[in-house]
């Protein structure tokens, strides 16, 4: 356990060195938040029917999305791990008395948390003080807030487990571009990153509910706004845990297979 905390710490130290990136990131997220909200405002002012999510809920959803971007982005990638695999430096990871899967899991988790801490805290303060209608809403009550935090963290673990599969696939493809692009485009759409899931057509929603991706974005964010009631949220968290076990189990097994066949070339 100490080792993982240590990896985490080193990652954090590493991330703190890039101050300019953090500031630029925060500003970008703020900018995108405004743009998306303006687009939804335009849509909502011209819609005739009763929308499945209120504008206020959508605005909160957009801000959460921007604040926790590094928790939910699938394209967020750790080039170091790709380099390890393609350059053969993985030889060193294999000489350590520690499992590769948990080690990488810790690295990826640390990278996302670091990035979130450096980017989201500043935005988090700003968005609560914005003028209406841009201002971010508070969750309806305290239990909802707790449920949100728990489901967001579970979602974070799910997304790291999904992205582990991308890294593992590089053992076979040797290039991260293809698998990252494919999984991230599809994954982000089905997670509700582009359009919130309740705004999708019914048939597409059914499809989305069958995939793991929505549990990382759509679910925790709608728990926050109270759009998903509390009892349903608890059930949802059980499903999150199931997906997590499934994804980790699958990733663990495939990494084992990959490592048995690994050929470190050259040198």
């Amino acid at each position: 356990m100490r080792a993982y905390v240590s990896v985490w710490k080193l990652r954090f130290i590493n991330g703190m060195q890039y101050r300019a990136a953090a500031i630029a990131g925060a500003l970008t997220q703020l900018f995108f938040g405004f743009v998306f909200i303006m687009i939804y405002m335009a849509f909502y002012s011209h819609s005739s029917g009763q929308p499945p999510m209120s504008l206020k809920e959508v605005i909160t959803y957009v801000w959460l999305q921007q604040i926790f971007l590094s928790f939910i982005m699938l394209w967020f990638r750790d080039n170091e791990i790709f380099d390890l695999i393609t350059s053969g430096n993985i030889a060193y990871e294999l000489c350590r008395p520690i499992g590769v899967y948990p080690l990488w899991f810790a690295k990826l988790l640390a990278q996302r948390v670091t990035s979130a801490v450096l980017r989201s805290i500043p935005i988090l303060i700003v968005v609560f003080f914005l003028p209406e209608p841009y201002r971010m809403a508070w969750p309806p009550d305290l239990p909802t807030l707790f449920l949100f935090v728990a489901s967001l963290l579970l979602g974070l673990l799910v997304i790291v487990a999904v992205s582990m599969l991308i890294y593992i696939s590089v053992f076979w493809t040797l290039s991260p571009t293809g698998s990252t692009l494919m999984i991230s485009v599809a994954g982000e759409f089905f997670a509700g990153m582009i359009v919130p899931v309740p705004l999708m057509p019914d048939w597409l929603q059914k499809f989305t509910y069958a995939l793991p991706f929505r549990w990382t974005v759509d679910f925790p964010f709608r728990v926050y706004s109270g759009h998903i009631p509390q009892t349903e949220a608890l059930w949802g968290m059980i499903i999150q845990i199931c997906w997590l076990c499934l994804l980790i189990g699958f990733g663990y097994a495939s990494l084992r297979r990959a490592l048995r066949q690994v050929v470190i070339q050259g040198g």
Partner: protein
Amino acid sequence: MQDTIIQLEGIGKSFKVAKRSAGLVQAAKALLVRDYNVVEALKDISFSIGKGEIVGYIGPNGAGKSTTIKVMSGILVPDEGSCQIMGYTPWTDRVTYVKNIGVVFGQRSQLWWDVPVIDSYELLKDIYKIPRQMYEDNLRMLSETLDLAEFIRTPVRQLSLGQRMRCEIAASLLHSPSLLFLDEPTIGLDAVSKLAVRQFIKTINKEQGVTVILTTHDMADIEALADRILMIGKGTLLYDGSLEQLRGRFGVQEKESLDEMIVQLYKEHQI
């Protein structure tokens, strides 16, 4: 002879290598039909190494030196044969086994690129669960003998190759391994760093009884360090014996350098 620490028997490993000729037509053809060459990287390699030895592992480029090191350090699973090191089979008992060994791959890096060296060491301390006292003693000893004090707080990316290599070697020894694999540790080093590294290898071998297996193309390394030479060519073991024996074989031509002798030996075996 001393206790055996490494026992390899009949180790074999072959790789499938895709091949095609140059040119567009050939490239297009390769899209449909792939031609593979099976390269036998290791063929029936057997040897044993005793505790406290320094063994030089030599051979021309592509002979299978690194492959052997990878097999012995548990990274690569061989196709056949058995390997017992300190009672472990490296590739099946990987996690428990690697606690006892240190590995330096001269062409790769184990240090975190963007942070000071000392941060990487702290991480290794936790990964190997090194007790604080032992870590501090080792670190002091290593930074004295390898002369690291000046740049241990510098980010790795700003180090010169020689400085980095010394840090890499230190990193592999923080957990007091009893067996050290060095895969081309002196590659690209200047005279000063080379001597420092050699001196250091001698010291840890004498004082702590660390068994060292070292691959290199620099015969001066071998001359300075190794009591015993293993020579490999095209995946087979060609020579196993002491340096003096090798000299003896070629008569007492003291003027002849070790390099020339090795070339002759390569020729003899047509590799």
